[in-house]
């Protein structure tokens, strides 16, 4: 019998990723996104699937739909969208529920559910590892999985997290450590067509000026994310 074993490749640059020390120094202005990676269609059972990595944060998503819907949940003129967020440790609680709601409503804003009335579209998210900007990563993976499943959408969306540390400097896509030290952490979801704010949730205290700055920064960052989407999708279809 044959056994394949994937050995972790060594690489020259010595940025130690789990202790964000090196990062925070390397990005004094804090304005960079960590390295991204995405794999699509990696699960055989769901209609669409994707895994998304931002630095060491990674989430796996599976999408089913348009599929049969429970009569109790049936909506006569559009699809019933469901999002299930599964934490890595223990059972999902109130926090997960409210995040599920955030993600679901964000998806609903772009998914053209009216094309598939009385069906269900289910997005299952599994946290693989949380090293900061988890919610943003959840949003990104959800979007990629929806695309992979071929769910009709009027736009793409992405999640961006900004952190404001004590002296008010702005950090994009913060690591867990940076989030902990930050005075405020803001997470936004933006759509690809006109960069509008679809979803936002925040921790900590901040001024309206800071909010606007974070939003602006997020909008700039989103363009990079969307470019990443495009390139990975182009690669994916390169052989068809």
């Amino acid at each position, binding site marked *: 019998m044959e056994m394949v074993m994937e050995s972790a490749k060594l690489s020259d640059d010595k940025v130690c990723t789990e202790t964000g020390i090196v990062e925070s120094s390397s990005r004094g202005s804090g304005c960079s996104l960590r390295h991204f990676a995405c794999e699509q269609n990696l699960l055989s059972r769901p209609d669409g699937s994707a895994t998304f990595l931002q630095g060491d944060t990674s989430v796996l998503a599976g999408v089913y739909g348009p599929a049969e819907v429970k009569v109790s949940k049936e909506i006569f003129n559009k699809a019933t969208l469901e999002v299930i967020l599964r934490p890595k440790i223990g*059972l*999902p*609680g*109130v926090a997960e*529920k409210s995040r599920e709601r955030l993600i679901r409503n964000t998806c609903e804003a772009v998914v053209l559910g009216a094309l598939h009335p009385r069906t269900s579209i289910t997005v299952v998210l599994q946290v693989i590892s949380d090293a900061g900007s988890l919610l943003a990563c959840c949003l990104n993976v959800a979007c990629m999985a929806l695309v992979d499943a071929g769910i009709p959408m009027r736009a793409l969306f992405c999640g961006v997290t900004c952190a404001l540390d004590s002296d008010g400097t702005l950090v994009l896509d913060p690591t867990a450590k940076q989030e902990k030290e930050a005075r405020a952490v803001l997470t936004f979801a933006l759509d690809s067509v006109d960069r509008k704010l679809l979803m936002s949730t925040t921790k900590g205290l901040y001024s309206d000026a800071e909010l606007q700055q974070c939003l602006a920064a997020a909008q700039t960052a989103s363009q990079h994310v969307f470019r990443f989407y495009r390139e990975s999708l182009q690669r994916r279809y390169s052989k068809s």
Partner: protein
Amino acid sequence: MPGDHRRIRGPEESQPPQLYATDEDEAPAPRDPTRLRPVYARAGLLSQVKGSAYLEAGGTKVQCAVSAPRQAEGSERGIGLRERFRRAPFPARRRRAPPGGGEEHELALTLQEALEPAVRLGRYPRAQLEVSALLLEDGGSALAAALTAAALALADAGVAMYDLVAGCGLSLVPEPSPTWLLDPTRLEEERAAAGLTVALMPVLSQVAGLLGSGEGSQTESWAEAVRLGLEGCQRLYPVLQQCLVRAARRWGAAPP
């Protein structure tokens, strides 16, 4: 505890400060056994349900609501009247973590069995009337208050009924001189040897509900208690009447 992960969790266990109180609260003052505490009843307060009533007797505050009839699910056996009784976590002195479990279930059942005689269920085929009572503050005789409020809510919802239902609570003062007190306060209830709740349909003068237990006593004593209770219910009737007429005026049932 079921549904716990659907609530924000606190510490594993916690005790009420009363347990460590240095001074005990004083015994209830002696009083006329037949006194009723002043009652404030108001029907039709809630906007999102078919009918509702808020009743306040002394310290006890109850809010009742009747939802519009629901289509009874094929499987569901609860066709007809379905009662829900919930006490908010804060009415008693000790916070009880929801769900209340056995006790609430029993009270709900008692409510249901006490209201069914008054409702003309025949008029609601294949449908389910849901009555839910929420106890906001327990100042004694909570069940009785809930009963009365529920009846008012039903009437307010325009549910066809044979009669109203009024409830009264009683508790038996322990030795040396056992006497039944009408409409006891929470303090009195806590010290009582036995408790009883009666529900009366005032016009038809029929007993709609009866639930009592405690230290054993002779049937005569129970009988006396029931009589006392029924009399109490009769005295409540005018209040209910006023309350409903007021409600009726409010939504202006103008003559056609």
